[in-house]
């Protein structure tokens, strides 16, 4: 869900993730864009789910990519959160984010699942979208990688 939110903000998200993984010297884990996509397909809510288990090194690699992408996108993430905080005066950014996020969920996830249907329901899930953005913003700091790892390990 975090990577999907990154892709919602960065229209060229999959390319950027691959570029960032190369910058972080993670070529041995993610030799191509497809390898990142395959790992992302481990999410059981996806339409084309990959049942192959993800190992610890790959898990850490994805956290590094998420944290690094958050740093790169922080101004946009902050602007969207700020738009939600001041929704009455400045709703445009939040509305754009939410509609594109829902579009991507609908495109990539199994919409027959009740969890996915709930995720696509704005009234039910707008707090969840906000939490996803808060997670990304707190993952963008110098301590972001450790924080995200701690959170994902304790969910």
């Amino acid at each position: 869900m975090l990577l999907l939110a990154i892709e919602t903000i960065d229209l060229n998200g999959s390319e950027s993730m691959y570029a960032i993984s190369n910058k972080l010297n993670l070529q041995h884990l993610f030799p191509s864009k497809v390898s990142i996509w395959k790992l992302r397909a481990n999410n059981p809510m996806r339409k084309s789910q990959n049942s192959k288990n993800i190992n610890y090194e790959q898990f850490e690699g994805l956290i590094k990519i998420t944290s690094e992408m958050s740093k790169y996108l922080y101004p946009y993430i902050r602007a969207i959160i700020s738009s939600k905080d001041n929704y009455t005066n400045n709703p445009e950014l939040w509305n754009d984010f939410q509609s594109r996020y829902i579009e991507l969920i609908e495109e990539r996830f199994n919409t027959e699942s009740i969890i996915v249907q709930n995720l696509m329901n704005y009234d039910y899930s707008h707090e969840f979208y906000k939490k996803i953005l808060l997670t990304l913003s707190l993952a963008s700091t110098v301590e972001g990688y450790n924080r995200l790892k701690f959170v994902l390990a304790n969910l």
Partner: protein
Amino acid sequence: MLQNKYSFNQSSTELVISGLPDYSNDDKNDNISIVSNWKLSVINQPEIEGSIDHLKSVIKAFYKCAALSLLDRDEKIESELIDLNLDDSGNYRITLKSTKPNIKPLKLKIGYAEFSDIINCFDQLKNFKKIKIDFNELLPNIKKKSIFSLHNNRFSYIIVPPVLALITLSIFTFMGIYFFENKDSRSKNISMISNNSNIMIKMN
């Protein structure tokens, strides 16, 4: 002796720390080990400042609140110097309590954006080598969803279904035995009656 002063910025927030090196700890001239003053400024909010104890309790509360928010756990953070909680409208409500008498607590309300800016400043401070604050005591000590409770759950998942099955099976078995015993005794009774009736007939 000149005071050292460092500032950390992120979007709407600025954290300024002033202090002196502790030469007994082999500090260099540009280090800060003794924090004499600090100031946290957030746009459209009153400035926060105080002693090192205040700073430590503020950092501790913010780090704990960040971890709890990310873990989606609802816990109130309250201490002698600061209360920090997420309200129903999705804003953080901060109450800063002064150690001086007759000073009312300062109440602030900040959104997620300002909250993440403040955390960002504290993270910068944590990773800044020239200011020596022991962050180990400030990091959140949140109990993991304990392995024990997970085992308890797993234990119940493993044990409860077969126990239920066994109980159900026992109930049906006892019901079956009772039913067949009754049926047997009833048929025996009937044969006794028919034997008796034969005897009666013969006697007649």
